[in-house]
């Protein structure tokens, strides 16, 4: 077995036990990257030199008898909307072409302190707005299961890198499903923590009241381990909460007897592909076999979640993205007067999807429409939250498919932007309610557009939990994982070993 095939848990233990050095682990990954990356396009930048320094530091610590941290020597890729001092942070946008960040995000500082080795910055939908990573201004990331398909988004680069074995774990950000959906599309595990659990300081804001940084890994334990490293109060983020960091990675095995899980019928009522639905029900029956009580339930307000989300997120985004004005950093197209500069810079710097959301959000906040759109959406959010509060009085967790479909084909354009937005239908409510939600692979499904020769693609199950109850969410995820472990390991191991992406992807520099 190659070092790049190991999980974070194993790497950290082997490195700490001096069975292998952080540098050896890193070199194995760098070699894997140089082999696979040209055809995968997961990384906007590979931070080779910086990674080598970080790995040698971990080794030096171990040699010096110091504690190297719980992620000792674990390679980690970072979605390129998080700041790392001295490196580029593009957010997948032309707007930030050439921008070099002068400071580091709290989550990355914490992870590095625990011995993680940052290997590079990964591709994303521009400013994290999208579900396919196609709206990146730089390149289109491929899904390692099928290069003609998208890895999901917006954290598609991070998901693809972990799924393809280019990185052991990765960080993404999730505003409406941007961790869970790509995790589902690439057959890995992704967690959106409770809002406030992980500091947002240094994460370029999309929608501040919904954004949350979270971990990707190839198994639940790795995700739990990375969560331990990045969680905790940060006084630099006023929305960060003071809650104990739990050793989640050691609390995964839990009897499911007596556990109550609800399945919101509003989510299953959405147009879910048959294959995905089948895989979901198979997972449910596994959980029932293990003693969990699973019932259909109703959270009526979830029917409006997508509508509320597509008002609130663009509204906040329109304000958050106002700082990209060509004055202090990034792209600046100068005209003869100030207004020319603003208009030209923003029209050139933002791609179509970002513009669309800025326009939508500006409209929803504008005089005469605030009450009808933004305020109504904010009130609807209260109803959604109430429904979750009520449901969690009865159930420990709520379950749904993570996505209505498996990975779709790249380049699919429908006339109606709302069709694309439907990809977030399962996931947005967790962001609106601020609750933790995990996507864990629960099997494979045949894409509806695959035809006869198409291969099965992974699909994920979503576990939503009570605020700050990541412990239960991860434990259920661990049980789901166990139920499909053999099939998953066999298929994804084979996928990675046989991965041969012939075509180089197009990159814009």
């Amino acid at each position, binding site marked *: 077995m190659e070092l790049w095939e190991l999980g974070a848990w194993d790497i950290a233990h082997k490195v700490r036990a001096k069975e292998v050095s952080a540098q050896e682990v890193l070199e194995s990954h760098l070699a894997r990257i140089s082999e696979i990356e040209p055809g995968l396009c997961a990384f906007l930048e590979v931070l080779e030199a910086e990674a080598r320094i970080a790995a040698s530091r971990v080794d030096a610590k171990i040699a010096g008898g110091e504690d190297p941290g719980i992620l000792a020597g674990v390679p980690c890729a970072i979605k390129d*909307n*998080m*700041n790392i001092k001295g490196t580029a*942070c593009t*957010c997948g946008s032309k707007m*930030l072409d050439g*921008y070099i*960040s*002068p*400071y580091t*995000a709290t989550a990355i500082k914490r992870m590095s302190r625990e011995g993680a080795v940052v290997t590079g910055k990964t591709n994303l939908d521009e400013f994290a707005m999208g579900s396919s990573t196609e709206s990146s201004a730089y390149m289109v990331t491929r899904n390692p299961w099928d290069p003609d398909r998208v890895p999901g988004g917006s954290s598609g680069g991070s998901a693809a890198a972990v799924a393809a074995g280019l990185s052991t774990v990765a960080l993404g950000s999730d505003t409406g499903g941007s961790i869970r959906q790509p995790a589902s599309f690439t057959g890995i595990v992704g967690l959106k923590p409770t809002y406030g659990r992980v500091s*947002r*300081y*240094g*994460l*370029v*804001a999309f*929608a*501040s*009241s919904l954004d949350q940084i979270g971990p990707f890994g190839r198994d639940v334990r790795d995700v739990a381990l990375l969560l331990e490293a990045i969680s905790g109060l940060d*006084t*630099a*983020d*006023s*929305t960060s909460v003071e809650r104990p960091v739990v050793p989640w990675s050691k609390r995964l095995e839990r009897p499911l007897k007596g556990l109550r899980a609800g399945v919101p019928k509003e989510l299953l009522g959405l147009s879910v592909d048959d294959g995905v639905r089948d895989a979901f029900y198979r997972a449910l029956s596994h959980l029932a076999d293990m003693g969990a009580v699973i019932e259909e339930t109703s959270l009526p307000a979830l029917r409006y979640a997508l509508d509320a989300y597509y008002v609130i997120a663009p*509204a*906040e985004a*329109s*304000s958050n*993205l*106002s*700082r*990209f*004005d060509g*004055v*202090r*950093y990034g792209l600046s197209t100068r005209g003869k007067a*100030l207004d020319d500069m*603003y208009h030209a810079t923003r029209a050139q710097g933002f791609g179509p999807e970002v513009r669309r959301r800025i326009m939508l959000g*500006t409209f929803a*906040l*504008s*005089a005469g429409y*605030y009450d009808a759109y*933004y305020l109504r959406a904010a009130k609807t959010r209260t109803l959604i939250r109430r429904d979750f509060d009520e449901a969690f009085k009865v159930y420990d967790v709520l379950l749904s498919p993570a996505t209505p479909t498996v990975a779709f084909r790249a380049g699919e354009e429908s006339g109606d932007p709302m069709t694309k937005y439907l990809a977030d239908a399962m996931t947005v409510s967790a962001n609106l309610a601020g609750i933790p939600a995990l996507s864990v692979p629960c099997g494979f499904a045949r894409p509806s557009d695959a035809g006869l020769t198409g291969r099965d693609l992974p699909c994920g199950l979503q576990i939503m939990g009570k605020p700050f109850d990541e412990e239960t969410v991860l434990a259920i995820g661990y049980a789901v994982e166990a139920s499909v472990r053999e099939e998953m390991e066999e298929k994804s191991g084979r996928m990675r070993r046989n991965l041969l992406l012939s075509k180089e992807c197009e990159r814009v520099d």
Partner: protein
Amino acid sequence: MTERAYDMTIGLEVHVELLTGSKMFCRCSTRFGDPPNTNVCPVCTGLPGALPVPNHEAVKLGLRAALGLGARINLRSGFDRKNYFYPDLPKGYQITQYRTPLAEDGFIEISEPPKRIRIQRIHLEEDTGKSIHAGDDITTAEYTLLDFNRCGVPLIEIVSEPDMSSPEEARQYLERLQRVLRFAGVSDVKMEEGSMRVDCNISVKPRGTAVSGKPVEIKNLSSFRAVVRALSYEFQRQARLLEEGKTVVRETRHWDEAKESTYPLRTKGSSQDYRYLPEPDLPDLVLEESFVEEVKRDMPRLPAEIVAYYTEKLGLPEYDAEVLTLDPNLSRFFDDCVERGADPKTAANWIMGDIMGYMNRQGLTYEKIPLSTENLVEMLGLLKSGVISGKIAKDVLVKVIETGKTPSEIVKEEGLTQVSDEGELLSIIQEVISANPGPVQDVKNGKEKAIGFLVGQVMKATRGRANPAKVNIMLKEKILS
């Protein structure tokens, strides 16, 4: 022009910079006058990913202002974003308090005519950076230089109700407001340095009519004088328009100090739409009752309270008490003198007379009173014990101020000690008597007034050093016995 047939309604929006060490939402220094762009960080320059954290002291000072203005504190308020594009506003929005301000319903009393001006709201916000327009003025500049040192400095905005009906009332309101904020230690409130900025809203309507005029906003006012001038100008301009049967356009106008007139700043069709949004990066500002109590307890004394103390406890006339509370430094100076044993009325006279006179001549502000209370009290002691005369004391005071030496040092060095020695005085008195036979005869004839002239002659001969009371007695003795 029939100005008298029109009434004006004035409301003021005052922005005041708070006296904190660091900025509203980051830890950069608020120091004034540092080289451009040296007190800056990811937060106050709006770098992507940076987040705000409010300043404890700013909240405290905001509360003090609110308490000083008799306002009702909102124990739960919140922050909002005011969205607009301007190069000195790095995030593209200003963090302010829109839905619920820190405090509401305060007031300021003015005296002429006695009137209560209501304050609608007091809220916290952040200042913008500074734009320096390269060129003659805003309209001809080719480019703008930006300095973000001031960006993010904590402000309170104090919005009055439209309760003022003359430029003079506006001036009084501002003076009183300034005085309260200074005494409360909230701000140094200097219009010249921009730590106090005033926007005026004025509307004009024919007297006796119920229709309210359209408010015009005036900006760029850098002194109280400018406020008064601009309001007077605007009143006349609007009254003239109405007189001519024209309508007043609702707009923002800029005061041109040099031309003493206002001109419209914004005529573009698209009106402002700030698209206010609850600040998602900040939870509500929730104040503990105990925090408010603590601020109340630590509240410095305010002018009204001090005036009452001076008149009731120290027996000063109302006028003196008002003058001494023009400024906190001045009243602290006075308090210190009294504490060091000076007679309150004497100290008040000297401060209001010679000291303030000197400061006025020299153009000094109250920020730095040019002598120490020790020295003033020492001089008052020398005067009281008869070591120096009142006239000499006036000179000594100036010398103390100018040299920094103590009064005793100056008296000693310059030999200014009052002459009370009878032998020395006697010989001078003899000379004066022989030189002025006429007035001496008048004294003998019972003309009391003539004695004054003779005392004056003795004082002149001693260059003011003689003890006038003693000279008076000795002269009478000499002439009448």
